[in-house]
């Protein structure tokens, strides 16, 4: 079956269809990670997006079953594919791995998500790099659909859990504000001996008992969620340990009075270098965001904890006298390097 990728700027790319045979649309983004398509596709931050991978050979090791009963063992980042479409150069016609339960193609079919292969994803990446993420659609057998702009939607609404979920056990409890959280964030907290209550972003927590708060990652432009700041301000006043990750970090910054802006070159890779302003140590991190916290706007009382070695943008915040921390990158990773797990240890230390 033939398929076509059409961009809002009018460009189009011919390819072959795989996965579910339905046309789709969304925001086209790329990632330069060479491994981890399972983790990426199930990452809620990709909700509503058409994900293109720059690495050309995809599907080689198939797809492992989700292990849903124990989140610390989960091989997916959420219980379903979150991206609306998948764009690859070369879809492997064989999957060879002891841990593979199905082919990528079968998986996408099962999940009702279309894919397009045979695309020069390097050419596409250069377009997106220079003009920023843009809307696009994947047309299967010419069946038309309209462009869809996920940023017009309240994405966290779609990506977050609908009702509270509990994970793990421990004498201390962490409240997880879910904006579209990845499993491995929860896994990292549970592994450190906490009980986690995962609640929707708009959930009324007044009746809940908890000792610390996580503001999770999630999709979309932080500015659209300014209504969250009052809630987060309330949390801050409780003086409990808080850790914000990615979107959570940006919302924390907005609450603190800082500003966010759209990056000309979004960070969409597993090899983003950040430096820890305290230790002077540098780390390779996994990132996926198009917005950043404006360093100049960081209010007094806060320290720019991490910064990006490539473009100097802010990568984390540290409150001078409250146990509040946040990172723009994903310390939990998956897919990606596991070098910054210590951020969770720091969070634990705050208790």
């Amino acid at each position, binding site marked *: 079956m033939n398929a076509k990728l059409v961009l809002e700027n009018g460009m189009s*790319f011919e390819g072959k269809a795989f996965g579910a045979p339905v046309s789709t649309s969304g925001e086209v983004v790329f990632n*330069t990670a060479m491994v*981890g398509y*399972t983790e990426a596709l199930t990452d809620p931050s990709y909700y509503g997006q058409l994900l293109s991978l*720059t690495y050309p050979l995809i599907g080689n090791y198939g797809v492992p079953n989700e292990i849903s009963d124990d989140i610390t063992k989960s091989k997916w980042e959420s219980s379903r594919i979150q991206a609306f479409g998948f764009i690859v150069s070369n879809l492997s016609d064989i999957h060879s791995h002891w841990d593979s339960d199905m082919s990528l193609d079968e998986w996408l079919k099962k999940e009702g998500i279309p894919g397009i292969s045979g695309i020069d994803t390097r050419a596409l990446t250069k377009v997106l790099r220079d003009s920023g993420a843009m809307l696009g659609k994947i047309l299967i057998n010419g069946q038309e659909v309209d462009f869809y702009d996920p940023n017009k939607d309240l994405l966290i609404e779609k990506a977050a859990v609908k009702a509270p979920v509990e994970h793990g056990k421990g004498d201390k409890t962490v409240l997880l504000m879910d904006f579209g959280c990845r499993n491995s964030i929860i896994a990292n907290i549970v592994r450190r001996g906490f009980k986690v209550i995962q609640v929707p972003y708009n959930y009324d927590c007044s009746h809940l008992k908890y000792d610390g708060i996580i503001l999770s990652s999630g999709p979309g432009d932080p500015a659209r969620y300014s209504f969250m700041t009052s809630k987060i301000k309330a949390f801050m006043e409780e003086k409990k340990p808080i850790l914000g990750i990615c979107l959570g970090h940006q919302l924390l910054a907005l609450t603190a009075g800082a500003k966010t802006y759209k990056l000309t070159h979004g960070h969409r*890779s597993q090899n*983003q270098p950040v430096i820890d302003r305290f230790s002077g140590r540098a780390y390779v991190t996994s990132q996926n965001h198009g917005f950043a916290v404006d360093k100049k706007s960081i209010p007094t009382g806060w320290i720019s904890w991490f910064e990006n*070695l490539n473009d100097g943008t802010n990568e984390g915040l540290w409150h001078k006298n409250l146990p509040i921390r946040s990172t723009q990158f994903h310390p939990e990773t998956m897919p990606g390097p596991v*070098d910054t797990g210590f951020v969770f240890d720091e969070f634990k230390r705050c208790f």
Partner: protein
Amino acid sequence: MDNKIKKVVILGSAAIKIGEAGEFDYSGSQAIKALKEEGVKTILINPNIATIQTSDYLADRVYLLPVTVDFVEKILEKEKPDGILLSFGGQTALNCGLELYDKGILKKHGIQVLGTPVETIRNTEDRKKFNQVLDEINVDYPKSKAVGSLEAAETFAGEIGYPVMMRIAYALGGLGSGVCRTKEQLVERASKAFSYTSQILIEEWLGGWKEIEYEIVRDKYDNCITVCNMENVDPLGIHTGESIVVAPSQTLSNREYQKLRGIGIRVIRHLGVVGECNIQYALDPFSEEYRVIEVNARLSRSSALASKATGYPLAFIAAKLGMGYGLHELSNAITETSAFFEPSLDYIVVKMPRWDLKKFRNVSRRIGSAMKSVGEVMAIGRNFEETLQKAIRMLGTGARGLVANEKFVTSSIEDSLSKPSDERLFAVVDAFIEGYSIEWIYERTRIDKWFLHKIKNVVDIALRLGQGENLDDSFLLEAKKMGYSDEQLAILGYKEEEEIYNMRLKAGIHPSIKRIDTVAGEYPAKTNYLYLTYEGIEDDYTEKHPDAAIILGGGPYRIGSSVEFDWCCVIAGKTVRESGKTSIMINCNPETVSTDYDEFDALFFEELTFETVREIYNKIDPAGFILSMGGQIPNNLAVRLDANGLRILGTKTEYIDRAENRSLFSAMLDDLNIMQPEWKALTDTKSALKFANDVGYPVLVRPSYVLSGAAMAVATSDLELKAFLLAAADVSNEYPVVISKFYENAKELEFDAVAQDGEIICYAISEHVENAGTHSGDATLVLPPQRTYFETERQIRITSAKIAKNLKINGPFNIQYIAKNNEVRVIECNLRASRSFPFVSKTLNKNFIAIATKVILREKQKPIRIPMYDYEHVAVKAPQFSFTRLRGADPATGVEMSSTGEVACLGDNFHEAFIKALISVGFKFPVTSILISSGPTASKAELLSSIKVISDMGMIIFATGGTSDFLTAHDIPNLKLNWPLDEEKPGVVEYLKEGKIDLVVNIPKNYNEDELTNDYTIRRAAVDYAVPLITNRQVAMRLFEALSKISKEDLKIKSWDEYSVK
């Protein structure tokens, strides 16, 4: 950074040998560049005169001297450096450095080891310590034990059970290592090993596990990154240097990739490496079980590959870290982002080894945990099928890809699959053609099914063509994406290659140019590091350069073509740039400096095939090609490129052809009445014998089609000639055999020169120590000549001038002469740079290649007088053999080249330079005991006087039967040792084993292919027990004289510039 360091010594890796090839020229050159940037004075010690790193424009000072403790210590005393780099010259430099450290020499002179501390190196090299270190951070490694005795080895092997893996500490390229399936095998291997090492490692055999490598960089602030991971297509059991390797890994999940990455970083931090290193893993194909196989705490072949595969300059960065920088303080030259990052590839890289086993008599073709390959190629593409087929073509072995080849597989499919040899990949293809299943092949090879399936994809296309499927545009495009060359398709589709090309033209099917930028397009790139792929819709690089010279590189290193041509290519590129024109390189060898992206204005890491270079030419529309720098591969393309109207710079193709084509060339020589050995091309054995008898034996035989063994041989009788023609060759109208009169006791000389419009601009004559009959590549060269008649040189000069004029040469050329009683004959003439250009250029301090390049660019050059007699030094170039690694191979030289590398040293006289050169290729000096088998009666007589000389100076002389009697008869005291076959004591082999002999001189009895087993056994034993060996009479005589004249004190510690005449 550390500004106390003002002056640094860098140790090179000396001659190119199996396991230590060009990669260290690349890493050394990068280190020098990095230090110069810091204003640090650099002193290089490396006798490999053909390297780029020993060029006059890199290090501040170059010592063309052996990388041995004695020499290096003296140099350190003289130069008083602040620091020393040990990790850029392979195992040679590392071992030498460790010895300097242990002997307290570095301490004594207050010299700091830059980069990874010696303790760390020690912990990685000593397997016992290494395992302890891994235990401290509970990382898994193969069950193993380091043992110091045969008994201990057997006991432990008994405990863990056979098969076991045996390995050697402080060895590289898996020297002497291998699987021992039985006790007997263990005993045999181990006893050999203990003759040159005190410690071996017995460990759990993990054959069949995935073999994965990571390249890791760490700075002194403990910042640590993994720059590249690689997966071996051939699973564990086959040395990474013998394996097909892909980057990045293809069959690892994110979990596995990150797990091994994380462990690597933990290990390297715990070890405390500062700079670059390589970690190798075994990974269970059926679980997340892993083992750490080893860490190389130095730049390695893998790191050179990783640098080229990712565009991340590992050696350059490592040198900076050695100077005290932090990774976060350095930047990525390609994107100008931070150097603290991990490259992201948007393409796949395939590395393939190049073997030359056919060149050796008696050698085993099996491959395993020890290296035998002499070089490698790297291909880049956007799918595995395309990239693998490109890599195969790059090897230049005649293979056109996976399919459409002559039959390569000699033994049964089953055997060649389960007993890996250099032909296994093609056995896999044959198996698919025969209809065997992926499963069946997997069971026998343990090659991951993913790779097997991809190979099958390629074969399937061939089968479809075989079934007559019409090659329409879409099928054509599909095939091109699967890496099919036009030639392959022509063969399989019963068409002409040009037809396929025209079909592509009509359908507009051309490859796209893609750029390697280390960030998969996330940021814009500044450099032009490029490759071609059919999986693309646009070019990253669209510039046209009417002023560009496209230089074709030398391809993989192999016997007969090595770093010397890379030097020529790099110098040519530099000269083109300096003359303000655009320089573009096409090459495919990751070990080279010419594939360093900043050496040229643009680098295409691509095939050197007609099809590919034409595609590039059409996109660039350059001034033309330079074919005379990269050796024979580019040279062979001349006629075809010219015939298709592609511009070639330099000597006109018609003349190149006239020199290459035997009959045309010979006719020309006759017209000019220049003498040449009588020769004839014959199509049947009968006329061959007749001609041989007419000109008289011995004769040199060159079949045009070789079935097995050597391509050339010398026959001394009808019997031998018949035998050779029947056994080795197929003689017919299609495949004539060329027979030439073989001149005995003749001198051989090299004429290297540059001509402009047929007029010689500069030239050098080098003399061979060996008489004609030892391939020029294996010969010991002397410049200026010491034992050649003035008249002979005059004739060579005059003859060469005639040839240059007649061929209207524009550029470099080389003529080989044989001379006998002042008559010179031409053996061959190449209108390109030759192996000896770096040697003559550096010895005479006149850059022949720079001059040649200017001529090629039509910049008028004035003739240069080189005052041979004013030189106060003599240079000697000596060959490096790698027989140690080629189990079974007969280490005797002949008309076929068999050396893998070379060195050259300078001295105040021949003897000094000669001894230095020999030490550089592994001779021990001084020598106190020699074993002599002096060969035929004639040679016994010839050797007598020089043997007398060393005997008089008190040398202990051992001799075999005939020689002993002969010496005794001429009252030269000697101890007779029994031939191996006699199995009587005292026996030769026993003495060699016990290290009672410093040097073996074994002159083969005749030129016959099948040598007497006795002589073979002695030569082989010498090699296996690491005793220096000489098999040529002239070399023996020169050495005996030198030994009698030279003592340690005479070996002067002088740098290259201290010799050069300005």
